[in-house]
């Protein structure tokens, strides 16, 4: 098991612990597993540490709780990933917005 996977598997009850059902990770939609896979893959490439990502995620969860938001875990996971990518200048926020536009149009063209 990779170190990142070990860290994730060992985290059962912190606010950042991934959703599980009877011990198994739960992805409700395919994009959730993609978001998860992207974060782990970038972390394994050494672009950021898992604890850095987890801190971002906890900050997003805390902020969402404070404003009484009912965002899903992976919704916040994605927000945390975007903000860390921007903080590390890996992907800037406007680059992401532009790509979202492209993806939306590509989907409409299908």
């Amino acid at each position: 098991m990779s170190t990142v996977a070990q860290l994730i598997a060992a985290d059962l009850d912190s606010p950042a612990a991934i959703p599980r059902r009877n011990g198994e990770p739960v992805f409700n939609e395919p994009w959730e597993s993609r978001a998860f896979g992207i974060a782990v893959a970038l972390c394994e490439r050494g672009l950021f540490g898992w604890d850095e990502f987890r801190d971002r995620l906890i900050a997003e969860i805390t902020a969402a709780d404070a404003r009484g938001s009912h965002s899903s875990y992976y919704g916040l996971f994605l927000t945390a990933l975007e903000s860390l990518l921007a903080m590390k200048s890996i992907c800037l926020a406007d680059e992401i917005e532009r790509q979202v536009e492209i993806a939306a149009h590509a989907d409409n063209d299908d």
Partner: protein
Amino acid sequence: MSDHESDKSHHHPQPPSPAALRAKAIESLLVEKGLITTDVIDRVVAMYEREVGPLNGAKVVARAWTDPAYKRRLLKDATAAIAELGFGGLQGEHMVVLENTPTVHNVICCTLCSCYPWPVLGLPPAWYKSLPYRSRIVREPRAVLHEFGLDLSPTVEVRVWDSSAEIRYMVLPERPANTAELSETELAALITRDALIGVARLANGRASEPQS
């Protein structure tokens, strides 16, 4: 091309959600920057699923191995027997559990797209959804199983089950030898996703020995 089209209509009844678009956008941006490949993400997700395991399905199998009455109920009405353990979430589709024996080996697939018993097996592995698996497992199951490292004796009958929107299958693997002293929980830990799909048998040394 007709394959691809039927696949598409089956997969995308609705436009992707905003979150799905964002995830896709981030992925393609990172791929463009050469920081990541789609294959790497597939591998990470698959690895993670393998390590953490399809616990619900494993618990069902471990219970069936240790409780003959439960096993009978499971083979008769899997949907109800699985619900007994508190695993639901099936959306109207029926579960059917297929028992492997020394003479019959079952393997599941979905030739049309990627129908899969999510509530018991979790997320389908990437290869399960791939066209080569979907088309070849029906045509040449033994060759495909060989590529998974599973060589079955010619005397073992291979049955391939094609999932649909109405019926989802799971394989009940044979209980490995020398596991008589193990608890239900310990048994569950031995069970792999691939064995529940039917592309692997559970290792105990006996399975890989030539059957003469």
